[in-house]
């Protein structure tokens, strides 16, 4: 079966867009083919800085023929309708149509329209121009002479040529010819910009990959990554060093080269005085280079690894030299920032925070710090943190934003605060909090453990959430520009993973924000494998304010339901709830009223007497246990109800003839229903 090879050759595609674009190309072309009846066996997509490529294996040579029934007007319909039908179906005479009978509508005409499948090659030639013209680049542009025309082609950068061939392994593939705004498809591509710029004739995927490789282009991003990672490790190992692994950087670097050549450079030892994170940030952000550490140690080495796109005549000596110059200049700047910053105390920077807007409607960072201090003082006793340390950390936590270093490298915010605080002799917890109050930054980030850090981290996130809620900037759908979901998840994790009880509503959190926390809590618990419905059951019982307690209830409920007692009690609850639902609906009233114990004593059956008694005891025990937050104990107390409940349903007819007895039995069931609500609303538990 024939294969398709497509390559779109352009000027340099931004590294961050390549992988996604290759995937988009694959899904757009394959789904357009499938839509036209051309199924395939496999598809592979690739990207390099200068090309997107697609290889589709196992396509049919022809699109399958299609038979389509076209429904026409009823027999005897006006001539105009008949003519319209004939025209639409491509028929010349009514005799070519068949008549179908329908019991309701009577007889009507049917035309069977057969369309011959086209050669797949033509199908491809038809569909590709539109896919190319409407390609979903995050940002695209016009260029050249044609850019003045309406509807000019847009691409991420100027598109230069299109290679497109189709054919099976046993024959010479043909060019799929089409034209996109003046660019004609062909069978030509180009190799490495400097090492092999001449045009290359390509037949199919096999020789395409091989010819590119000999023209110094590695087509697969993953292979380029592998080459870089391996060469980097090898070079490091030879020097007794280790690469500080960085997959995000590796992905980016692989998108900047077609032929990776890893080279090692060095810088002066004296720069190692600068905090290692800063060295890494400098070299990474500006130079896209990896840093190295001494094998088996955390100490950085005065070396770096660069990935060039060139096999240079002098084996890279000039390239290394040039990169070292830039690294040296950058590190000189960083060293200057570091030394300048150390001359100014963090507290003396606060005034400058007045010039930094946090958000137009939420004031400056200075105002925000004032709020954080108040909040930190409030939260400190709850988290069991030293209030004066928490307040101190809150005062200083944004001061590094106006340091030279953070101005240059925003990604070291917080961390620099910690370094500067440690240098000016702040308490260790205070210094740590300056870094840690930004954490956790997501589901896999570390949660602070130090009480001062926890306090300021909570204050930071609660202030953000309450603030944005108050100006109605809530996340919608996929839009969450202020990362409020992350902040709320941060609060959830800070509370749960540190066993902190916090009554959210006491800290300006309204119902809408509380519901937002519940959503995050559900996502968090679901990720941990917790049942969704159990969370709903606990929330429905009215326990909404204290996230830690919600989770404890969920855990107790989960354990209980996994036991025999739990399953049976739940079955009993459902039976009771169903009966009540039906009878309450019928009677138009609720039976949530006190049971007439006297009536039971006088006229009740043995099983209902027992249930009434046990219910009284179990309810009291359950409530007592809940009061001391022993939810497992509360569940155990409820479990004691099980034999009595089972016996009651076994022996007692709820709908007794005596009106009063019936009502009282319903009240008894209602109080059983109520008793279970001590921990959760069982009715929200999924069957």
């Amino acid at each position, binding site marked *: 079966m024939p294969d398709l090879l497509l390559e779109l050759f352009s000027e*340099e595609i931004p590294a961050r867009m390549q992988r996604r674009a290759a995937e988009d190309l694959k899904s757009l072309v394959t789904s357009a083919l499938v839509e036209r009846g051309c199924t395939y066996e496999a598809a592979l997509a690739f990207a390099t800085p200068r090309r997107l490529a697609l290889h589709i294996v196992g396509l049919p040579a022809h699109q399958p023929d299609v038979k389509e029934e076209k429904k026409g007007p009823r027999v005897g319909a006006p001539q105009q309708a008949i003519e319209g039908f004939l025209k639409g179906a491509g028929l010349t005479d009514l005799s070519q149509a068949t008549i179908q009978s329908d019991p309701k509508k009577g007889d009507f005409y049917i035309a069977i329209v057969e369309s011959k499948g086209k050669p797949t090659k033509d199908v491809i030639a038809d569909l590709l121009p539109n896919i190319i013209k409407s390609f979903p680049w995050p940002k695209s*542009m*016009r*260029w*050249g002479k044609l850019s003045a025309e309406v509807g000019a082609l847009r691409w991420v950068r100027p598109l230069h040529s299109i290679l497109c061939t189709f054919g099976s392994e046993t024959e010479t593939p043909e060019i799929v010819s089409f034209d996109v705004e003046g660019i004609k498809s062909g069978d030509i591509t180009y190799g490495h910009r400097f090492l092999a710029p001449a045009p290359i004739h390509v037949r199919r995927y096999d020789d395409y990959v091989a010819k590119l490789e000999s023209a110094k282009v590695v087509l697969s991003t993953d292979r380029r990554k592998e080459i870089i990672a391996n060469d980097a490790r090898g070079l490091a190992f030879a020097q007794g060093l280790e690469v500080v692994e960085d997959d995000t950087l590796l992905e980016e670097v692989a998108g900047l080269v077609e032929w990776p050549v890893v080279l090692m450079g060095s810088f002066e030892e004296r720069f190692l005085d600068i905090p290692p994170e800063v060295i890494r940030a400098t070299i990474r952000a500006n130079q896209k280079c990896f840093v190295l550490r001494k094998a088996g140690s955390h100490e950085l080495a005065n070396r770096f690894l660069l990935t060039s796109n*060139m096999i240079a005549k002098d084996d890279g000596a*000039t390239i290394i030299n*040039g990169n070292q110059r830039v690294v040296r*200049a950058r590190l000189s700047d960083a060293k200057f920032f570091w030394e300048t910053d150390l001359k100014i105390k963090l507290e003396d920077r606060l005034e400058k925070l007045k010039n930094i807007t946090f958000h137009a409607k939420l004031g400056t960072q200075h105002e925000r710090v004032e709020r954080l201090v108040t909040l930190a003082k409030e939260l400190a006793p709850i988290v069991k943190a030293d209030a004066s340390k928490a307040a101190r950390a809150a005062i200083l936590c944004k001061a590094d934003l106006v340091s030279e270093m953070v101005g240059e490298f925003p990604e070291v915010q917080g961390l620099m605060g910690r370094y500067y605080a440690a240098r000016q002799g702040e308490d260790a917890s205070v210094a740590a909090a300056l870094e840690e109050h930004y954490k956790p930054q997501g589901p896999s980030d570390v949660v602070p453990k130090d009480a001062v850090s926890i306090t300021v981290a909570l204050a930071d996130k609660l202030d953000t959430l309450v603030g944005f809620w108050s100006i109605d900037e809530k996340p919608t759908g996929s839009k969450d520009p202020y990362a409020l979901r992350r902040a709320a998840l941060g609060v959830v994790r800070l509370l749960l993973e540190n066993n902190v009880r916090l009554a959210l509503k006491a800290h300006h959190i309204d119902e809408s924000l509380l519901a937002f926390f519940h959503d995050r809590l559900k996502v968090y618990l679901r990720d941990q494998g917790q049942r969704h419905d159990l969370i709903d059951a606990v929330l429905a019982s009215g326990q909404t304010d204290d996230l830690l307690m919600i989770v404890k209830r969920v855990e107790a409920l989960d354990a209980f339901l996994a036991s025999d007692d739990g399953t049976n009690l739940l079955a009993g609850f459902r039976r009771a709830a169903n009966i009540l639902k039906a009878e309450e609906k019928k009677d138009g009233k609720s039976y949530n009223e006190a049971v007439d114990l006297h009536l039971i004593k006088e006229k009740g059956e043995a099983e209902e007497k027992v249930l009434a008694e046990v219910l009284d005891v179990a309810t009291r025990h359950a409530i007592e246990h809940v009061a001391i937050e022993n939810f497992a104990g509360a569940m155990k107390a409820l479990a004691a109800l099980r034999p009595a409940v089972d016996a009651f349903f076994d022996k007692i007819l709820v709908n007794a003839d005596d009106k009063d007895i019936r009502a009282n039995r319903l009240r008894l069931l209602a109080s059983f229903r109520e008793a279970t609500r001590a921990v959760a609303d069982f009715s929200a538990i999924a069957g």
Partner: protein
Amino acid sequence: MAITSSDSMNPKTSFQALILTLHQFWAEQGCVILQPYDMEVGAGTFHPATTLRALGPKHWRAAYVQPSRRPKDGRYGENPNRLQHYYQYQVIMKPSPANLQDLYLKSLFAIGIDPALHDIRFVEDDWESPTLGAWGLGWECWCDGMEVSQFTYFQQVAGFECSPVAGELTYGLERLAMYVQGVENVYDLNFNGLEGEDKITYGDVFLQAEQEYSRHNFEAANTDTLARHFKDAEAECKALLDFGNKGEGRHLMALPAYDQCIKASHLFNLLDARGVISVTERQSYIFRVRELAKACGEAWLKTEGGGA
């Protein structure tokens, strides 16, 4: 000491030869070689030969050196890399030719950067000028890890779609020359390519100016005067635009009006360097300059040069 023309004309040893080589190269590509615009601008893009000529249907090719002023970047002559006054080499080609990347690489070769020895890369960098209401897509051009040029396909200028699109190249001349000459401090650049007592360095030419202008930009410039001049330039720009606007016909005064826009932009940069502009004011200043730029662009499109 004998002066040989090869020393003074070698782009690898002489700053001015680098400029002359680029002039020669781009002249051969059909560019008109212009002289710097005679006003203070923050970048070569501000030259009307780029900003205004990028608008409208007429074909245009130009290259020039533009002294660029970034008052805030002054370092009193003490930083080896930062200057408040430096040279940009600017090339604009409208419409952008299909081989613009190749031309750029050839120009590097002409000034002594052999692609067989170096690692030259085009790294994503989307260009945007909020004050000019302009944006484009392109790259930072890297040579051995150092950004040596900016390469942009203009998509919009002064709020108007570029039609056709112009390609713009901006070379940071000092940085490029430092690399080619192998010099670590900008003030050590050999300006005239000579040695001994005949040698003139970049420091000989500009060090004193950097010191004096840094004092001016950060300490001395009278902020009340600057603020007043900003308002004056803004008002004058609008007045000239009104004066030149004859309704349906051509606009008669786009270029003089645009001068006032340039002036306002530079005054804003000075005020910014003096540290008297708050965050919110900053936004509003940028907005005001952009409004002027847009109005000038609109006027230009109604002139002969703009294709009206």
